[in-house]
């Protein structure tokens, strides 16, 4: 009988514990704003073509500024590695067939390895020859841009606004873009970009809450002479080397 009572008491305690857990969940649920989000890093390209352009530009930038005591070198190096790491995903999100995708994947693996080899065991970066080292694989990647398909319609990316500001720091992309910010709505902006190709492109930005900016960002591609996307709503332009050349 005692055994049974003990058992009943223990069962009750277990269930009480369970209820306690539930109560804390109630409190948690009621606390604060729990918006469901999937974060897209600020430097993630919107499509394969843009990723290739970014790699080309960023590697050139890093090469040109190597050894100049560039403060952001490590951060930019890490971002370049990230972009190379996203190549398989971005290529899979395109019209490339399996054979082409495999080649892109292999080129991305080699690129990443070459990039990592630029880091000495003590952690310092030797990026002087980076552009030259990655040139063959970059060329391979560029050759797949036409097969990757046309730019897709606008896709919405959610960005952490604070994060955006962190990266507002001089990304000295030696390109000239004229941005005309036209506030049509309290929370909406429309940017017009003028290029030598005289292609106009629109980017819609929407303030959706504290620290959040939603961007309507069409993918770009050199092949189709479409302007690369603007990265944030505060007018910091990240463009590509190819556009500069053009």
């Amino acid at each position, binding site marked *: 009988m005692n*055994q049974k009572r*003990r*058992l009943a008491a*223990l*069962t009750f305690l*277990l*269930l009480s*514990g*369970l*209820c306690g*857990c*539930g*109560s804390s*969940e*109630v409190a*948690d*649920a009621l606390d604060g704003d*729990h*918006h*469901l*989000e*999937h*974060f*897209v*890093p600020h430097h993630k390209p919107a499509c394969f073509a843009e990723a290739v352009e970014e790699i080309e530009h960023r590697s050139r930038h890093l090469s040109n500024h190597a050894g100049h005591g560039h403060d952001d070198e490590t951060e930019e190096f890490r971002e370049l590695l990230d972009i190379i*790491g996203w190549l*398989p*995903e971005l290529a*899979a*999100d395109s*019209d490339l*067939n*399996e*054979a082409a*995708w*495999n080649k892109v*994947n292999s080129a991305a693996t080699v690129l990443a390895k070459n990039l990592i080899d630029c880091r000495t065991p003590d952690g310092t970066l030797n990026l002087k020859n980076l552009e030259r080292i990655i040139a063959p694989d970059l060329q391979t990647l560029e050759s797949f841009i036409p097969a990757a398909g046309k730019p*897709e*319609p*606008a*896709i*919405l990316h959610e960005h952490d606004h604070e994060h955006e500001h962190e990266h507002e720091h001089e990304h000295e992309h030696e390109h000239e873009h004229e941005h005309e910010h036209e506030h049509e709505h309290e929370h909406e902006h429309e940017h017009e970009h003028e290029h030598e190709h005289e292609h106009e492109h629109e980017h819609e930005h929407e303030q959706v809450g504290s620290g959040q900016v*939603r961007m309507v960002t069409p993918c770009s591609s050199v092949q189709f002479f479409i302007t690369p996307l603007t990265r944030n709503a505060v007018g910091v332009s990240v463009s590509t080397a190819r556009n500069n050349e053009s």
Partner: protein
Amino acid sequence: MLPMVLCGFAVRFAQSLAQAAPFILTGFFVAAVFRRFIGYEKTRQLFGGSEISSLFKAWLIGMLLPVCSLGVIPVIVELRRAGVKGGTILAFAMSAPLFNPLSLLYGLTLSEPVAILSFAACSLVIVTVVGMIWDRLFPGSELTGVPDESVRYGIRRMAALGVSAGREATGHSLALVLCGLVGVGLLGAIVPHASLQHQFNHDQPLAPLKMAALGIPVYATPMLAMSQMGMMFQHANSIGAAFVLLALGAGMNMGLIVWMLQEYGVKRSASWMSILLVVVVSLGYAVDRPLFPKDIEPANHTHAFDIYGQPFSDQKSFGVLAGQSVEKLKRDIQPYEWYSLELLTLLMVAGCVVRLFDRRGRIEVWIAQVTEPADAGRMDIIVPPTVLGGLALAGLVVFSGVGCYAYYPPASEVFEEISIAKSEALSAGLSGDANHAEYWIDVYQEWTRKLEVGVFLRTGQLTDYQRWKARLVREHLEMLKHCVEDGEREEARVWVSKVQRSHNRLRDAFLSVRL
């Protein structure tokens, strides 16, 4: 408030019962096979040997048998009667629900197959370490003197199987199964709707511990636990918590705890649970960083545990909630679960009939009166009960292996199912019907995983290209789901077209002749 609590309890209880029904049914028959065919002596031999070998055998047999943490209850009740050591039984009870061939294959399609293989290896470590420590702390925990009830041959042997299964289905094992279901029902009644979404993010150091608290009352079939882990990997949530979920969510339930308390008392049960929690949570923290998916951007939430909280978000009258509960159950319970529920009901009715009309045990007496076989010639062979029992268990394992082919159909069939789910999900996405979209997006995502497993099963390989295509469809569906939930119509429209394109590429990757 009360109608919500009652309906929440009822919905979660019924959903779990339906999910568990095939496994509970299997558990009752496996238990009857041990009692009537294999017999207690052979059962002790099967799970016997040295300390480590008995624990390893318990883990291996558990991994092969298609049972869940509720279905394993009748089996461990029988193992206890057979006089198997306590540590070995508890090791079997823990490992049997973790994996089966279906769930293992499913798990291999998660972001990193090595994660699932590591989890399987960790489960072996858990049962071995915990079982060994417990057996040393409490030697001589086995029952002795329970008379053997195996039947040698004939129609009585077949009748005995049915009678044993029927009696257990209406007896002690059923009560324990109901305790397990009450645990998950209580969660559904108490835990607020969607309140677990942010508790297991990758950056939460307490996520494995929180999961340990949640994992004991929850009930998850091996497949459900695996798909929940899939969602956690997809959202890059805490991998340590995912491991704890597998070990405790799939491996434990309230019914098992009540059984432990009844059989081994408070002290020994508390010792088992303490050792188990220390080992599981430690392993959870140990695997958290090494197995974290490197190519996924972490989300700040997971949907994996929405099914353990209140199914309803708004308070309504009892009548409305009851109607919604019925609709929800009709939609969620799969056809094979209905069949299993019907068979389980049939077994329980048979058990009730035996209990009601045979209170003096005349059937048991009749079963026990097996006469010595007459020498009827060379072709009339009496198959020993152990052989038959072994064949039954082996057949079950083979059947679950063959079942994989039915559960994971070929790509062409999967795309027929996907096209239904896609049109429902996308049209609901366009119209902004959040409930409908959510349901069909889940179905759609589930089929993309089945597609991967089916192709792997039939061709022996799944290319990275195919993996990426399937993963992108799931990711785009996930974004669509969020847009619909947030009522963002324009954004949803964009994701609908994105999903459509990803779907076309998925189909090309799996059905076209590859160039």
